[in-house]
């Protein structure tokens, strides 16, 4: 499968540049997920790979061969659309074989391919139905099947699960992961759902405002986000942010804020810290653990008034507030906290992320 490379990729609509100079290499047989809020340019990027949008500047290379000016059919790609885009006047079989019929494949070959893909996706009993007679999940599978039948090296998916209801989405996500094991293809997947990105992707590309904020494996993005945006985007519930001032106290670095004072002795690149000392601290909701009563030996504690307790089964999310900004904490439901409680939480120094307040870049 080819290596797909973006070189200085740009896209403008008139005077408005929406994709700014993207460089990226997607390795052989990699599942790459583009993720970001709506309007970040992820779909536009995908459509440029597909050949549905022209490239304003830069290149898209497949194994070193420039493809940005080729017709979609000559790019060796197939695409699954967000809205399925099934041909309403054709039955499932005709929908899936449309591309092959256009390419004048022999009939035996077409039916062989359609049948094998239909088998894999469980579409066999539906082959003679029209899209109007299918449920959302079935349509989604047909759209997937239509792309797979083409047997191209690269599969593009534009938010394929976003039109399904929550339960079906989780189910299809698992099916997608299983299907992924069976096929040997590059997959480029666009979604705004970070859970989908984390669970499916080999590599995640986080985009915002037409820039790539960071790319890497799900763990890399989750554990070492490059900046405040990535840190806040990846992970559910999102990371808590609070303003703090850095001070040097008896040899150790402290971050002082409203109602807390954290020791940051795990920080390595201290020379990257802003001279002004103005930082934003980031703490994941799961990193805050309730401190045992009476134990004053633990450092880095924070007492929070609980406003709301969102019970969600094994875990509960507590919502609190510091200085007007919301703080959420993920705790074991067995703790049985109630709204109105004042709870003391502790956090490990290694779980505190530090961001420069001006550049919003992470400092490790």
């Amino acid at each position: 499968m080819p290596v797909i490379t973006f070189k200085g990729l740009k896209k403008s609509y008139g005077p408005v540049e929406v994709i700014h100079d993207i460089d990226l290499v997607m390795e052989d047989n990699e599942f790459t997920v583009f993720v970001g809020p709506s309007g970040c340019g992820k779909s536009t990027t995908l459509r440029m790979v597909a050949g549905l949008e022209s490239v304003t500047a830069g290149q898209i290379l497949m194994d070193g061969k420039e493809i940005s000016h080729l017709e979609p059919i000559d790019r060796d790609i197939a695409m699954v659309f967000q809205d399925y885009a099934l041909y309403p006047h054709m039955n499932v079989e005709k929908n899936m074989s449309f591309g092959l019929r256009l390419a004048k494949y022999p009939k035996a070959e077409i039916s062989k391919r359609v049948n094998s893909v239909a088998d894999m996706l469980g579409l066999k009993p539906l082959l003679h139905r029209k899209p109007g007679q299918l449920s959302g999940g079935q349509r989604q599978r047909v759209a997937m099947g239509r792309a797979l039948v083409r047997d191209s090296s690269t599969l593009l998916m534009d938010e394929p699960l976003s039109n399904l209801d929550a339960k079906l989405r989780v189910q299809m996500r698992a099916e997608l992961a299983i299907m992924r094991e069976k096929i040997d293809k590059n997959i480029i997947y666009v979604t705004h759902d970070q859970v989908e990105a984390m669970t499916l992707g080999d590599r995640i590309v986080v985009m915002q405002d037409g820039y790539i904020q960071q790319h890497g494996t799900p763990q890399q993005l989750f554990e070492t986000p490059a900046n405040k945006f990535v840190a806040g985007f990846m992970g559910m519930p999102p990371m808590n942010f609070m303003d703090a001032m850095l001070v040097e106290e008896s040899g150790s670095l402290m971050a002082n804020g409203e109602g807390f004072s954290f020791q940051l002795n795990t920080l390595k690149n201290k020379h990257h810290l802003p001279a002004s000392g103005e930082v934003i601290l980031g703490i994941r909701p799961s990193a805050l653990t309730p401190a045992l009563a009476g134990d004053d030996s633990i450092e880095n504690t924070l007492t929070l008034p609980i406003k709301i307790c969102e019970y969600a089964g094994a875990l509960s999310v507590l919502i609190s507030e510091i200085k007007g900004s919301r703080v959420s904490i993920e705790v074991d439901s067995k703790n049985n906290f109630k709204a109105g409680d004042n709870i003391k939480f502790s956090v490990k120094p290694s779980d505190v992320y530090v961001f420069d307040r001006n550049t919003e870049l992470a400092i490790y």
Partner: protein
Amino acid sequence: MMKNASESRQSPAFYALMVALVIMSVGPIILMLTTSLKLNVDVMSDTSSLLFTPTLKNYETVLCDVLWYAPEHVDYCNPTFSRALGNSIFIALVSTAITLILGCMAAYALVRFKFMGRGAISLTTLMMRMVPPAVLLVPVFGIWTFSYGLDGTFTGIILVYVAMNLPFVIWILQSFIVQVPIQLEEAAKMDGANPLQIFFLVVLPVIKPGLAAAAIFTFRIAWNEFLLANALLDRNTRTVPVTIVNSLTEYDIDWGVIMATGMLLAIPPIIFTFIASKQIITGMTAGAVKG
């Protein structure tokens, strides 16, 4: 419709109105049907307007040319009516076909392609439709006859009908094409379809209801049109409406035959509408995209 039809005081007036409307709309058709089944003797007599022996002789006279047997009562078989029926069917079908072919392509181009003057063209097509045919009559007659020699030919009248119907057909089809999700065309593009294949294999089947509506409209206009047909056509190419009017002479009016022709004139549009309306199924794009 009355607000409360069940209120008994309003009912008599309501029903009287209904009856009047039914008589007005159905009356002429019944008169035409009964007259077409009468001999001239019965038509003219004052006494037997409702009591008569129905006969198909008038129909036999009209269709004597195409019947497989020679009707006994017809001494001289006048081919005018059957010829006119044939002309009408030919002209209506051909002009409908040409109008639809040109119309769907023009509408697609107006909706999907960006080119200079698109908005102006889109608007003017509809404004062209506002010109009454009677205004066109004299210039069209002049140009067709003296510049191109198209008077009395099928080509001439079909051209006029196509020109007359095209703006409205484009306008109808535009609204159908706008509703075709763009993703469908993109999906076809990804499947390797060229623009013509996208149009014929994806867009046209999806807008079939629009094509059917436009076809009914075009066919009926071409079928019923009298003014231009009367001016442009000669005795060999005349359509049925012109023939009927021409057969009302000061010497002889064969009411039975005229009414039989009228009945025959009414049938093809009904059949055509019936066939075409089967294509008008709501929700043609159901299942195409999540809506």
